Every structure is written in C-alpha cells, then in structure tokens.
C-alpha cells in the first residue's frame, strides 16, 4: 500500500477568482504582504502496489484534473 497525493491547480493563464477573493480578504484581516493566492485541490489516494505510475498519471489526467484548465502533479508518499 502507498499513499499518493495528487495536487491539482488552475493553469497560470486561467483566471482564479476564488484565489483572488482569498487574497483580497487577507488585508482586511490584518495580514499584510501576501501578493497572490491561487486555490487548487489536493487528493489523497490509498493505492496498492499493483498500481503503477502510468496508471496514476492516467487517473489524474482523465478524472481528477481537467487538463484544459488545470495542471496536476502526482507523488507517492512513503508510509
């Protein structure tokens, strides 16, 4: 068994209004100096040893991310 983390982020050229809203809220709460926020998703998958890296990439590309608007990274985390 392994834990796999897939991070999905909006592509740099895609406007991220949610991240912008968070960035705008920070000064109102008294936090200065944060110039940009981008908001994405993190998926944690428990997979058995039969699942290879190629399959993980396919899982991320076909379902977890929409590659028209999002980039993803896949990494295994040692238990």
């Amino acid at each position: 068994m392994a834990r796999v983390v897939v991070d999905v982020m909006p592509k740099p050229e895609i406007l991220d209004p949610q991240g912008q809203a968070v960035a705008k809220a920070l000064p109102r709460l008294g936090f200065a100096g944060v110039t940009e926020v981008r908001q994405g998703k993190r998926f944690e998958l428990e997979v058995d040893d039969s699942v290879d890296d190629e399959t993980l990439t396919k899982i991320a590309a076909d379902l977890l991310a929409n590659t028209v608007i999002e980039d993803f990274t896949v990494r295994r985390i040692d238990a």
Partner: protein
Amino acid sequence: MTAKIGVITFPGTLDDQDAARAVKYAGAEAVSLWHADADLRGVDAVIVPGGFSYGDYLRCGAIARFAPVMGPVIEAAAKGMPILGICNGFQILCEAGLLPGALVRNSELHFVCRDQWLRVENTTTAWSTRYDQGAEILIPLKSGEGGYVAEPNTLAELEGEGRVVFRYAGANPNGSLNEIAGITDARGRVVGLMPHPEHAIDALTGPSDDGLGMFLSAIDALVKA
C-alpha cells in the same frame, strides 16, 4: 413522423421537465432518458439539461460524463445526431470532449440569475437555423460556473470557423472569453450554451419566447434528414 427528442435526467438534474415541455411545445415527442440507461430509446436528438448533476462534485459535469447513458450519446454524436447541452449540460459536453474548452467559476464569484440578451452569430447549426444572423434574443441565465475558457489555439479555431453560436450582448455576465455564451462542434450538430432556452418558450412563463427557436430548429433538421 413525429421527431423524438430525448431529455437526460441525472441525479441532481433540475431542468429536465422544462426541457421536455419545450420539446413538446415545439411539436416533437419528448422521451425521458435516465442516466443509467444503456441506450437512447430510439430518439432522433438528445438534450442534456441543466442542474447540478451528481452535486457538481469534483467539477461541474465531471462525474456525469462517465454515466452509462453518455456512452451512446458520444457514439450518436459521432454519427451526427443533434445534441444540445444547456448550462450543466454544456459543462457535461465539454467534460465529455464533445465540445472544446471548459466552464469555470464566474469572474465576480457570484451566482448570476437574470434575463440575458444574446446575439445569434451562427444560424447554420442543427439548433439555430430558425434565428436570423445577428438577432438578439432574451433568455434566462442562471449559473455560478459559466465562464467559458479555452486555450488560445482552440479559441482562434472556434472564431475562425464561425463556431461561436451565441455571444453575450452588453456587459459580460461571467468573464467568458470573447463573451462566448454558446458554441458548436465542427459539424454544427452538437451545441452547448450556458443560458436556458427552455425557460423562454412562452411569454407567460419566461421573459420571451426567444428560446423556442432552438427546439424548432432541431425539429427542422430532423424532418429534413
């Protein structure tokens, strides 16, 4: 022969009843299709209506795309069957790869619910022949993730081939690139748009009857075929 137009219901679909009503109002037979159906029950065209299929989990349309009924829809689209995706249906068709691009959160973050003017820019698709080129039509828009985006090459291709069917007239309601409200596939058979023509088929229940033309156009296309 009465044209048979299928209307798909997914868990979380909202506008299937209005879409079926619009089909009947236009003079065709409305056939209910269920997300778990393995075939299209002999219909001549399909409408993927609006709502929040599968609760919009993951991304709007991302789960619905894999519903059993979408297999035959994708096969039928390849053979040229007229398919219309409205709102969440547009998102589903994009996720399924039947239309290019994607829909993202509205640029101002707010859910937009209002009567929206659109300009008709392509009157040759299966769903838009009843309109005049450049006509402005008033149709309800109600969505939180209606911002159309696509890669620059895709956008250039859509514009170059005249595949933008509907464009927002006046102020851009949701940050859609090039004010795009609706597009078509390369053959003009699959159309997706964010606003809701099925809510504008009679002045008694909507802001206009401007939406009826889409359903009448499809019936024309089927009768000719």
